[in-house]
């Protein structure tokens, strides 16, 4: 059974249709890249998968790990194992990063019928992950994303992913705003998450990230539809030839 199966997905916002019939299947163990020019519907797809208010699905189905995803609230999707990595993570002033990490982990554990994690185990685990992301412990005690640089915010998203160990990670433009060192750290984090039981979707504008995280499949999203799919060489072609060539070919 596929981990994620999207069939003929149509969605609109404020009455205008953005997604116009998307079909996508992601199996456990696979890394998919969704690429496309600005305005193609990449972020809308992420928000619809995340269950954000304001987006109306007018047609189609989404099945996630056997659940009817469209019937689930945002938090239920998270607890069922979906993690959305944000393009622009929002600031939550006054709430310590570590506090959010713990609450998020415990929300998941509660749904699994597990006890709250004890502080000692939690701190040990978090500290190791923080070090692996080349971050400082002080980072844990700052307000969530408050005053973080663009790179810090993205590292924080990956840190959350590493801690929460989702079944499906959906990373929206995780590479944007990263310098080359940060890109390597973030890519390492993603590569560590690759595994037989897990699916990863990288939504990205550029091929750059894919030099470090090699995708199994690449899809080109254009005007709300996936117009072409292929292996990693498709990403190289996009980089070399630009979108125009591929668009013409597809039409």
């Amino acid at each position: 059974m596929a981990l994620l199966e999207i069939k003929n997905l149509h969605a609109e916002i404020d009455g205008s249709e953005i997604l116009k019939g998307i079909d996508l299947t992601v199996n456990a163990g696979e890394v998919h890249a969704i690429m496309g020019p600005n305005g193609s519907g990449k972020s809308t797809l992420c928000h619809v998968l995340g269950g954000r208010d304001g987006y109306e699905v007018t047609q189609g189905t989404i099945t996630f790990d056997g659940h009817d995803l469209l019937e689930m609230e945002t938090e239920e999707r998270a607890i069922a194992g979906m993690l959305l990595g944000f393009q622009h993570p929002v600031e939550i002033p006054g709430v310590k990063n570590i506090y959010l990490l713990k609450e998020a982990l415990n929300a998941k554990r509660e749904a699994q019928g597990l006890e709250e994690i004890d502080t000692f185990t939690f701190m040990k685990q978090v500290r190791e992950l923080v070090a692996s992301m080349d971050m400082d412990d002080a980072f844990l005690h700052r307000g969530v994303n408050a005053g973080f640089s663009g790179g810090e915010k993205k590292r924080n998203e990956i840190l959350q992913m590493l801690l929460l160990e989702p079944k499906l990670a959906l990373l929206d433009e995780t590479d944007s705003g990263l310098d080359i060192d940060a890109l390597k750290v973030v890519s390492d984090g993603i590569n560590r998450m690759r595994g037989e039981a897990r699916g990863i979707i990288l939504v990205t504008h550029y091929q750059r990230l894919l030099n470090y995280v090699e995708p199994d499949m690449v899809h080109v999203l254009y005007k709300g539809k996936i117009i072409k799919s292929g292996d990693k060489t498709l990403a190289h072609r996009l980089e070399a030839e630009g979108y125009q060539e591929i668009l013409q070919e597809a039409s």
Partner: protein
Amino acid sequence: MTETQELEQLVKREYKYGFTTDIEQEIIPPGLDEDVVRMISAKKKEPEFMLEWRLSAFRHWQTMTEPEWAHVHYPRIDYQALSYYAAPKSQEELDAEAPESLDDVDPKLLETYEKLGIPLHERAALAGVKGANVAVDAVFDSVSVTTTFKEKLAEAGVIFCSFSEAVENHPELVKKYLGTVVPQGDNFFAALNSAVFSDGSFVYVPKGVKCPMELSTYFRINAKNTGQFERTLIIAEEGASVSYLEGCTAPQRDENQLHAAVVELVALDDAEIKYSTVQNWYPGDEEGKGGIYNFVTKRGECRGDRSKITWTQVEAGSAITWKYPSCVLKGDDSVGEFYSVAVGNNYQQIDSGTKMIHLGKRTRSTIVSKGISAGHAENAYRGLVHIGKTATDARNFTQCDSLLIGDRCGAHTFPYIEAKNASAQVEHEATTSKVSDDQMFYLRSRGLSEEDAMNMVVSGFCKDVFNELPMEFAVEAQALLAVSLEGSVG
């Protein structure tokens, strides 16, 4: 029915239950004139000076009119329709009304206590269960808490008693300090309180003494119903320090709609007073019916050099709150602080803030005000920073933040700054923000429920104030906000 409504109903039921009694009570008939003031003083067996003090307050009050400048709306109060004295109930009377045990208390009320994280051993006392104080003592290893506390305080020389007891046992102290911070004619409600106040608390910490405990611990369990016109006086002599906490996160009911309390604090040289309030009076129902009118005058005077007064408040209840805990910074190098969280839901109206009156040299004040509005609530911050001519090198920092939940509520800021000394430094920062859809979506996508997400954003917003509360209370205050805002999302 929403949870908020359920909560309201359950506490109402509890309130009815608590008061269905046919035992006769000694109540003065409605109305207010000099005879009533005399009668109150006589019933309390007060010395002559107290009667004179009350009468002069009453005469002053008659010349005054009710203030209308606050950003609140309510029907006119008929002061002649109120009754100004009810004899305190005897233990037998109280017992006759009290539930036999926690099993007889509405389970929903207990659930609220649970949500608020109120310790088990205090719940029975709060629910007014018969003989609950005995049970409380039992929890503490069979030693009577009250006695232990009293002994400890007496050993240190701290006087902590009801205002009536203070008038009886320490008239010289009362005479010396009463009305010296909030004069009888200070404002309409303070004058009324001065004329008819029922009872309250009195704290005296002698020279050089650090009060050995938070006065809250004792107070929370033993606080009696002190009536609608409460009067509190706290004096810290040279080098003394005390931390006092009034109120409770548990929902409080009262049959009196109008509350007009007065609190006076006096800090002499090097003394420090920390006064924390958690206010959770009945706020009225979802349609804005009923609820307490809370018109309070609180003021502290840093009379001595290097003295310090800190007000910390979490205001969650009352239909109308009119309250400006203030500091008069007379002593050189004295410090005034005000940390406030005021939360309004449904149709609550809040006009609250502080006054920092700088008179001494190098006086410093800090104001951190966090207003949260949800539902149809109106929440106004009103603050005055006054730098007098004599206040050379005075400094003030004000931070005033408003958080809006939903689009039917209002937040207002009325800052007044008067600087009469050119060396003053006054800073004012103000922000207004909404709990954004982005924040809610972000937190929910990490697995938090809608209410948990909201509570997380709100408690982050209030963090600077919660940090000032006594430790065990900060946790409860956070829970109180969650309960107060129930039903404001979704």
